[in-house]
């Protein structure tokens, strides 16, 4: 194996893993639009839906890629329920800290529930398609990771079309800009926020399924994942679905490069250093809109 193909392998693995960060960041971006908080429980919800996928595989023998069409709607409905149960009152408050703290509370609650249900042992869903490897020119591409990337791109495409082409999607964009103004149009802003939140959670469902068959996961991984999604979002910039996805891919790439050149232990150091540097020098991110940053 030449050093060139090793580097290529590193780059490919980075991009493939980054697609999960990207999916998580898209969810954060949509939720941030209307709720004006970083939904810190997103990573934990992704792990939760990975467990749902795991359970469907273990208890009912459902293939993870088939469970995608089951878990995603479940995640959407869970999102609706969570919004009305937890955020209904907080969403109306001027002070966004209450919503943020609710998200943090949810994070630890769900994490500890998962510890009770599934223990702290890492789980993994084995799947024939995901375990298939493509070998060519000394490079090894995991089928499952490739599928995860394709799913992430498709999800970004669908969410973008939904935001641009549908009435409710347009209302989500409108409410992200000016909630009071949408209310004055007779639009139920609370409902629009609920839909946006549910779509964000639906994306957590997609990411959970993508993750379950490719990477080992445990309850504690969720929080780290939320923070990585936040780093990806800051890289991509808020208010742009494909920007968020690209931010995730870039983060995955940089992490893998750091692991290769400096050492695996440095992955986290590099990720958070990037986070801080981006916030200092490029607060609107690589693909974000300047106006959005100014307004927030």
């Amino acid at each position, binding site marked *: 194996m030449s050093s060139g193909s090793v580097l290529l392998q590193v780059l490919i693995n980075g991009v493939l893993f980054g697609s999960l960060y990207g999916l998580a960041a898209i969810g954060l971006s949509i939720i941030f639009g209307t709720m004006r908080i970083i939904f810190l429980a997103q990573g934990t919800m992704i792990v939760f839906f990975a467990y749902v996928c795991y359970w469907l595989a273990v208890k009912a023998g459902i293939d993870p890629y088939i469970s995608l069409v089951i878990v995603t709607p479940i995640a959407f409905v869970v999102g609706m329920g969570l919004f009305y149960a937890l955020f209904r009152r907080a969403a109306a408050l001027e002070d966004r800290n209450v919503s943020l703290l609710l998200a943090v509370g949810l994070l630890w609650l769900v994490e500890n529930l998962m510890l009770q249900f599934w223990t702290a042992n890492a789980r993994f869903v084995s799947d024939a398609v995901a375990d298939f490897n493509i070998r060519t020119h000394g490079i090894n591409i995991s089928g499952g990771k490739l599928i995860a990337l394709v799913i992430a791109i498709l999800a970004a495409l669908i969410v973008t079309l939904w935001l641009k082409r549908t009435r409710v999607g347009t209302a989500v*964009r*409108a409410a992200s*800009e*000016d909630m009071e103004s949408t209310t*004055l149009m007779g639009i139920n802003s609370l409902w629009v926020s609920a839909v946006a939140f549910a779509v964000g959670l639906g994306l957590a469902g997609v990411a959970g399924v993508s993750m379950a068959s490719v990477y080992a996961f445990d309850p504690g991984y969720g929080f780290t994942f939320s923070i990585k999604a936040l780093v990806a979002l800051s890289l991509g910039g808020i208010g742009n679905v494909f920007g968020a996805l690209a931010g995730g891919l870039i983060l995955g790439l940089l992490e893998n490069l750091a692991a290769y050149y400096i050492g695996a232990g440095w992955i986290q150091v590099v990720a958070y250093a990037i986070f801080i540097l981006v916030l200092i020098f490029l607060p609107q991110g690589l693909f974000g809109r300047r106006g959005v940053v100014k307004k927030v």
Partner: protein
Amino acid sequence: MASQLLEVKDLSVAYGDVRALWDVSLEVKEGEIVALVGSNGAGKTTLLKTISGLIHPLKGQIVFAQEDLGKQNPKHRVDRGIVMVPEGRRLFQTLTVRENLRMGAYLPKARASFDASLERVYDLFPILKERANGKAGLLSGGEQQMLAIGRAVMAGPRLVMIDEASLGLSPILTRNIFDLIVALNEQGTTVLLVEQNVNMALKVCHRAYVMKTGRIVMSGTGQELATNDEVRKAYIGSRGSTAARGKGGRAQ
């Protein structure tokens, strides 16, 4: 002549401990342009927001087309035909002109007559048709005000409440916007105008109310108030007066 469309009775509003409106009563008849004038902080915007349902009153009544609106939410009020054009336009800047208009016609009733309303808006404001696919944020100030009014028209309103239509506009553009408001009114839409540009507002309206520190202190026809000494002194005449901030009023 025409029947009562909006009746506000003894309305009082407070923000926390700070009283903003004191026993405000006014009425708007079908087909009228009614102006609400007064200096900054008089409570004009608060009154419009209360009529829209954004703010709940301490006491008092708002009756629209014989219906007591009570604690009905903004959606219900828009559906009944009360639509507000907020101060500073408050457009969706990153949405296109057409998308903004689409948001105006969000409720089922308005959506059903989307095409007819769109034609009406493009007829009133032809420039919006030209700019239909451009971002609202890229429009000029005058065009943005047109879009804000057009967005309200898309809801198929019986009453349009316009908060500070002249804000930030040149005298010529202000006249232009007021001409369009009159045209809208002549098509049968009732208008409640809030204005700091007292001179202009009194010229186009049928009747007007003068507000001061949360109370209605005077009312009459536009003509009556425009020739009233007190009004002239406080809001129109003296150059140095802060109340005469709407500079457009001096262009005649």
